[in-house]
């Protein structure tokens, strides 16, 4: 549909209803059935969704196990817990899941912290951007690893089950999963590991891990 002032190219879409508008004109459209749309007017042009992907299923992200209770942590006895991340990016060409913590595991009342792990027995072997082996029960801190459950989108640095890295702290972010094309139900298991020394002050340590699934552009 077009006239001298605008062109409308769009699918017949059901799941979104609304009115994209700009100055001097108003367009009504619905979105959700046949695919992404191109909406142009005298003053603007909008492409909603990826034009080359006909799917209109939502970009979807789920996490199971969002409360990670470490229970009572005994010195030199590492505690392991896990969460599962699942991505369906049928309507987006590629995606990334970034993660970051608001702060280290901390007793808010006292400010005491469990530090991010450095992994190595004889010195730092991992950083928030580089995984390394964490095997010694005398290496302390908090970290995580990513294992592929369905697909192969975990960071490939986690070469075996001993490899971990610490969470990066906000506002920086680090990628934990990365998909290069279209896929459904790509799944990864995040294993959290915390280990403390005998000198760690007693208290209840907490923090927040943020996972954000973002489509590629």
């Amino acid at each position: 549909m077009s006239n001298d002032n605008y062109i409308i190219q769009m699918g017949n879409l059901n799941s979104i209803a609304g009115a994209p508008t700009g100055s001097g004109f108003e367009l009504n459209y619905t979105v959700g059935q046949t695919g992404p749309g191109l909406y142009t007017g005298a003053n603007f042009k909008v492409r909603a969704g990826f034009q080359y992907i006909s799917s209109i299923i939502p970009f979807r992200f789920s996490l199971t196990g969002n409360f990670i209770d470490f229970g009572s942590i005994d010195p030199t006895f590492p505690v392991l817990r896990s969460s599962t991340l699942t991505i369906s990016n049928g309507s987006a060409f590629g995606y990334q899941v970034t993660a970051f913590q608001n702060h280290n595991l901390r007793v808010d009342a006292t400010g005491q912290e469990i530090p991010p792990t450095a992994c190595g027995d004889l010195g730092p072997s991992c950083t928030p951007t580089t995984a390394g082996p964490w095997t010694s029960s005398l290496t302390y801190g908090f970290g995580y690893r990513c294992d592929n459950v369905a697909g192969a989108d975990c960071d490939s640095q986690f070469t075996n089950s001993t490899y971990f890295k610490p969470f990066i702290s906000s506002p920086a972010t680090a990628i934990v999963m990365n998909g290069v094309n279209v896929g459904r139900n790509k799944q990864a298991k995040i294993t959290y590991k915390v280990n403390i020394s005998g000198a760690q002050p007693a208290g209840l340590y907490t923090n927040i891990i943020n996972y954000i699934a973002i489509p590629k552009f």
Partner: protein
Amino acid sequence: MKIDLIALINLISKKAPISKLGLEISLDQLEIRIIRNLILLILISLILSLKSPTVANAQSVDLGIYPPIFQIQTVVPNDIKLPFFIENFQDASVPLSISLRPFMADPDGNGNIILQNDTSSFPDPFLPQRIQVSDGKNSIQSLILSPKQKKSLILEINLPGNEAKGDYYFSLIFSSDTQNVNDANASQASVGIASNILLSVGPLGETKGYIEDFSAPPLVTQGPIPFTVKVKNTSDHFITVKGDIVIKNVFGQSIGKVELLPVNVLANTLRRIPDSIQADPNSKDYQKIKAEIDKNDSTVAIWPEKFLVGPYTATLTLALSDSGPLYKKDIIFFAFPTEYLLGILIIIIVVIFIVSRVRQKAREV
């Protein structure tokens, strides 16, 4: 039929004679009936529990958003309203916070983004204040999604006449809220899902750029062939490139074509371009190139042809926008199918050997 309840209880505990119930059945028969009825009751309960809705799992968050990207080119002043939806797939309510975070393209060129902490690099650092999410007529910064709710919202961008020209890239993020925990050693996970906004405030400058790299392995033994296509956008706005790679054999015949995916290249950044097959994992051709995709860490455009022999010329044609400019670049690669040629060589040697032996025998006779 009237039954004395106390007598029944006594009977079950075998303290009373059955005659007190006034029933013409034996104790064993009554026990069998009770047990049978109990089993029936348990089975019915089990079936009903299986059919009832899944119990809400507060330890899971499952969110969806559509569309995953908004590509907006506009001149000012303008007031743009775009509908989208956010969906909760769980059987429990989920409180969400809404935020906008600027991003830049990851220099790896694979389309990844790097979230930024502030908007100081924007032509107008205060532009985010002119973007809001509305529920009906109300601007919102948080919302609660009910179980299984799909919520339609409006992305509203109000640009005044003096808005600074340039490109602005944001992720619109919906993050699940967490609760205060003070009775456990614990981490809480917040789940966020984002839709990207590419906003060009014009008038747009000239579209310009160049092919940074077009290459393939110079010598291969077989296909599929991975082409590296890197495009640098030197415009002041994002572009959507279109193009293809045409492959010709030694006789100049066109024997293959790779359609490139029309991906976005942000202003003053580089992007690797994949082929269009990769956007459809259900296609037969995708299965042919899947191994090659997995083998490459970076994005490549793949020609699925398997059997190749001799020199080939690949011509990349790329348009930086619908109205150009258009660029072309040729490369040559050579295919030497070692396995096939070794097999043929062995056969030739065997044939020559047999022929020579037969001739030798013939001479002797």
